[in-house]
């Protein structure tokens, strides 16, 4: 390549047209080095090797046609300017490519002297300008996010102070309060908690926008999360004389979700429902299977409130949306709740929507993916397309010495899980992902394709390995208990289907966990404010 020459990739299947382009560029200064290929596949391969300064692209090639051609080039080299070479008869196609991000188009056969060269220069300049605009946009976004994160952090210190001293007065640490004074303190505390929830939402929305929300997926009983949300919000509903009902289908298998986040979404929706439902109204929270979609469940929160106008139905999920006609206009909040809820649901792979008529109440619904035990089990419980002979469900329970657990309990649990992975045969035993538990106690389950005798050997191995885990010892005298439940043996081959094994596993786990609390660890900040009663 000569010093200062421009490198251009020409993707054009017609040799005549390609030669014409070369001819037009022969006298360009600085000189142009044209690399010509005849197929899109060759063009994409060339882009993988070297990035040209510009791409001249014919949209109709032997291996790709029309807009699709441009889309694939754009996908491969989003930063390289593209000039479309169009025939007389398919100018419309070229215009469409412009809308999709092409820099320019030229009609082949009508290229004036110097026109191609000029178009190329402008295309390169425009692309560079676009790139710098995009960069400064990202910088601004980053700055805004940092700013918001800083603000919400700084707000916390004075907030904490008010919270602490209000509680000190409320709890009588500075002398007894009379009834009226207690009432005033209670109002202060309620407002502080609202403020706290807003600060939390501010940070959460910033995170959602910059894609920094983490989802910690667990094997989750949606019934438990609904119950917990109900327990937190019932008081608030009662205070407002709003009825509160639950309808959870108990046949729902486990859901694949982050217990804290799902709870946050539910609390958000219930909080809104209570806010917009007048006294003597009612709220219903339901969770059910979706007949048309076996991979998801649907959770809904219905109210008998004022309803939502059709034009607002899509807007309410956007950031900072406020209903201009809301009844309770004095405490509007930041308008981030539904935005955060939507982002959280999306991160789970679900969707959220509302059905509402003004005056008829609203139903907010969201879907969550089911935890597909069936898919996970398939490769381990079958061999040559046949189900293996016997199955045992092995349970490993970790109990911390202290309640709540101290130190790095979460990490100890995840290290134990790794250790457990090494105690099983990966081709015929399945270590299930962690179950959502209260965090104080963690249960791991292994579906082992084996009989009880072999399961005993595996359990001994697990006990030995766990005993070696130093951190587990360091976390106090934490208990590790390992137990096994064999699949019941019937006179006939009962479990012929993987699905039956999956059902058996689900039922057995549900029964085993039934006695313990398997609920999210901490209530989200919003719940703390909503559930406040003193």
């Amino acid at each position, binding site marked *: 390549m000569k010093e200062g020459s421009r490198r251009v990739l020409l993707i054009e299947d017609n040799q005549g047209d390609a030669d014409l382009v070369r001819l037009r560029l022969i006298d360009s200064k600085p000189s142009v080095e044209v690399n010509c290929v005849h197929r899109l596949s060759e063009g994409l391969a060339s882009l993988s090797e070297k990035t040209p300064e510009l791409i001249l692209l014919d949209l109709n090639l032997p291996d790709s046609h029309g807009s699709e051609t441009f889309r694939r080039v754009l996908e491969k080299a989003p930063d390289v300017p593209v000039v479309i070479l169009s025939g007389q008869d398919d100018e419309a196609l070229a215009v469409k490519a412009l809308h999709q991000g092409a820099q320019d188009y030229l009609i082949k056969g009508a290229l004036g002297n110097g026109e191609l060269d000029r178009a190329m220069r402008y295309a390169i300049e425009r692309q560079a300008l676009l790139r710098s605009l995009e960069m400064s946009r990202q910088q601004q976004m980053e700055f805004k996010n940092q700013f918001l*994160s800083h603000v919400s*952090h*700084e707000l*916390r*210190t004075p*907030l*904490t*102070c008010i*919270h*602490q*001293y209000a*509680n*000190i007065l409320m*709890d009588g*640490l*500075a002398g007894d309060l009379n009834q009226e004074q207690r009432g005033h303190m209670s109002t202060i505390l309620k407002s*502080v908690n609202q403020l*706290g929830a807003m600060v939390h939402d501010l*940070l959460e929305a910033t*995170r959602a926008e910059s894609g*920094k929300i*983490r989802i910690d997926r667990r094997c989750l009983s949606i019934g438990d999360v609904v119950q917990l949300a109900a327990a937190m919000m019932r008081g608030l509903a009662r205070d407002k004389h709003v009825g509160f009902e639950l309808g959870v289908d108990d046949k729902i298998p486990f859901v694949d979700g982050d217990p804290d986040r799902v709870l946050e979404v539910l609390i958000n929706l219930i909080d809104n429902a209570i806010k917009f439902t007048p006294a003597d109204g009612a709220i219903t929270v339901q969770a059910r299977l979706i007949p048309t979609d076996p991979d998801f469940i649907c959770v809904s929160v219905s109210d008998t409130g004022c309803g939502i106008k059709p034009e607002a139905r899509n807007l309410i999920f956007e950031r900072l949306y406020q209903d201009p006609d809301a009844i309770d206009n004095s405490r509007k909040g930041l308008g981030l709740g539904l935005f955060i809820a939507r982002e959280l649901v999306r991160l789970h792979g679900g969707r959220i929507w509302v059905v509402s008529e003004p005056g008829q109440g609203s139903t907010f619904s969201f879907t969550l993916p089911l935890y597909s035990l069936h898919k996970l089990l398939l490769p381990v419980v079958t061999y040559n397309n046949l189900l293996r002979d016997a199955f045992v469900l092995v349970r490993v329970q970790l109990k911390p*010495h*202290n*309640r*709540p657990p*101290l*130190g*790095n309990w*979460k*990490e100890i649990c995840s290290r134990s899980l790794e250790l457990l992975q090494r105690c099983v045969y990966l081709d015929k035993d399945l270590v299930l992902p962690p179950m959502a538990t209260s965090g104080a106690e963690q249960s791991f389950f292994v579906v082992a394709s084996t009989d009880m005798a072999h399961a005993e050997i595996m359990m001994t191995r697990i006990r030995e390995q766990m005993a070696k885990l130093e951190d587990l010892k360091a976390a*106090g005298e934490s208990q590790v208990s390992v137990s096994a439940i064999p699949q019941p043996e019937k006179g006939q081959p009962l479990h012929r289907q993987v699905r039956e094994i999956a059902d058996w596993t689900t039922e057995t786990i549900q029964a085993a966990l039934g006695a313990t609390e398997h609920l999210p660890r901490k209530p989200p900040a919003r719940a*703390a404010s909503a559930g406040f009663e003193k």
Partner: protein
Amino acid sequence: MKENKKMKTAKILIVDDDPDLRQALRLRLRANHYETVSATDGYSAIAQAYKEQPNLIILDLGLPAGDGFVVLRRLQDDDKLSEIPVVVLTARDPQTAEQRALHAGAAAFFQKPVDNAELLEVIQATLTQTQSNLAS
């Protein structure tokens, strides 16, 4: 931490650069029969820990003269101080700070504003465990 302190009032070192918050924590802890001492920055936190030999430290992370993480490391590196359990109480985002603090040796992590009942429960549990560790 010898016999004379066992089961008697535990001494808690409060490290926070905000005087009002220190005072609030002091009131709260004293009401729950803990003895308190305090420090305002990273440097004096270590000095106070040496001098007072507290049973537990409540530590803010954003501190002048050596932030909370520096304090955690110094405590861990020092034979005379490494046994003192630390409860972190900070305005920082748990998503970025919690794992880091627990890694550095903190016994528990709380974001401000904290629920007092929860904080007191963890303080009690931590003290009980430290005591049983020492006994064994």
